[in-house]
């Protein structure tokens, strides 16, 4: 359902993403792992059509993101890093705007907005201005906009970053509830997240794909079965990793 082939991005002379390829099928929750600055966000921005790749392609539900961007974007729900939102709008007003852009109107629009609000547990802030929301509610509002049209592909860039343990639990719960009939990609550098929600893991380091496996198999590569050591071995340059 989602195919990424030889995706590459250069910013001037810096190669941020180098020749990354993978596919994800329906029902999978793919963890996109890597240290900060490894190229996770850049990859997600290319897959969602925000920035064009230097070379390579991403195909979503059969549509190439560069050739047919609007059709591909209709299949995607995207939660960008730091949950950007229009601060001067109210939560309901913002979700209505997103719903209209997604092509809904009238009763369907209202039903979709209500459903997104219920799924994201936003009932209590429905009429609040977005600029007055706490970080957790902001994250959930942005989550609601991503799932409003019940997308086949859901892409989330660090969805639990900066949330407290309870909020993290809620977000993971929401991801699990939806995982059966979707492709879900979440980027993270929090290893516990992998065990909590992911059915498959991709590790990216310095722009390159260094692992593509299940969490269990990945853990098995370390004698003690410690994910943090596996992660460090994969993503840290050798000369720093000798202690």
């Amino acid at each position, binding site marked *: 359902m989602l195919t990424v082939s030889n995706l590459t991005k250069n910013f001037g002379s810096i190669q941020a993403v180098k020749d990354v390829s993978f596919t994800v099928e329906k029902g999978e929750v793919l963890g996109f792992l890597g240290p900060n600055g490894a190229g996770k966000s850049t990859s997600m921005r290319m897959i969602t059509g925000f920035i064009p790749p230097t070379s390579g392609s991403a195909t979503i539900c059969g549509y190439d993101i560069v050739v047919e961007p609007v059709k591909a974007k209709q299949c995607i729900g995207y939660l960008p890093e730091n949950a*950007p*939102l229009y601060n001067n709008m109210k939560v309901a007003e913002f979700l209505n705007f997103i719903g209209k852009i*997604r092509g809904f109107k009238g009763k369907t629009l209202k039903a979709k907005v209500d459903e997104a609000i219920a799924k994201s547990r936003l009932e209590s802030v429905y009429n609040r201005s977005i600029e007055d929301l706490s970080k957790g509610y902001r994250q959930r509002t942005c989550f609601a*906009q991503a799932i409003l049209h019940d997308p086949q592909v859901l892409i989330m860039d660090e969805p639990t970053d900066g949330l407290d343990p309870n909020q993290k639990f809620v977000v993971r719960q929401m991801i699990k509830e939806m995982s059966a009939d979707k492709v879900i990609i979440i980027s993270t550098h929090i290893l516990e997240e992998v065990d909590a929600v992911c059915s498959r893991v991709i590790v990216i380091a310095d722009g390159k794909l260094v692992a593509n496996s299940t969490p269990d198999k990945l853990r098995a590569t370390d004698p003690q079965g410690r994910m943090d050591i596996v992660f460090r071995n994969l993503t840290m340059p050798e000369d720093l990793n000798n202690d």
Partner: protein
Amino acid sequence: MTNTRNISTIFKREFKSYFDSPVAYVFLVAFLVLTGVMTFILQSYYERRQANLTPFFQMIPWVYLLLIPASTMGLWAEERRTGTIELLLTLPVTLMEALIGKFLAAWAFIGIAIGLTFPIVITTAWLGDPDMGAVFCGYLGSFLLAGACVAIGIFSSALSRSQVIGFVIALSISLFMLIIGIDQVIGALAQWRVPSRIVNGIASLSLMQHFDAMRRGVIDFYDIGYYIGIMVFMLSAAHFVTESRKAS
């Protein structure tokens, strides 16, 4: 391919966002006070003893110069600063639809400000018998000039994530485009022995020349075409800049 529904949705959001904060009201009051002060005090409206809107239309480009960049500086800069540009451009809309929606919203907002200057027309009609055809042409010219300035503003706003830079660049471009058509500049160029064909060529690119013709009551398709041309050019430039720099 552009989808008018998307343009209209973005237009409504942008237009409403002007009125979500006190900014819109401060802006409208400033606009009306400035046009009023300039028309009645600087241009000595009453002392002229002529029932026409010449003093008003002579001043309106200078009010635009200051206030239109202020109303457009946030259109892209704010999207960039807060990161919502990533949200907007990963929705199923094209950049052109977003750009046109924003442009029309800002233009409509200035249109309201222009419309609210109607008491000047009433005052003039009360005092004498102005040529309403000329008044209409003047207002049409003012509206088209506003559209050109808004397009310059939206281009400038796309250049940087800083609203201040957007404001200063828009003001500089608009100022340049206005003064290359005023008599003092044309006179100075002629004095430096610049060939008159070049002087006329430069002046014909000016926002002011085409506006002067319209406020005198002449509607020429050439002038209307000029303003549409400036808008199309500036929006295309804004499209190019946003496309190539949206992630930075």
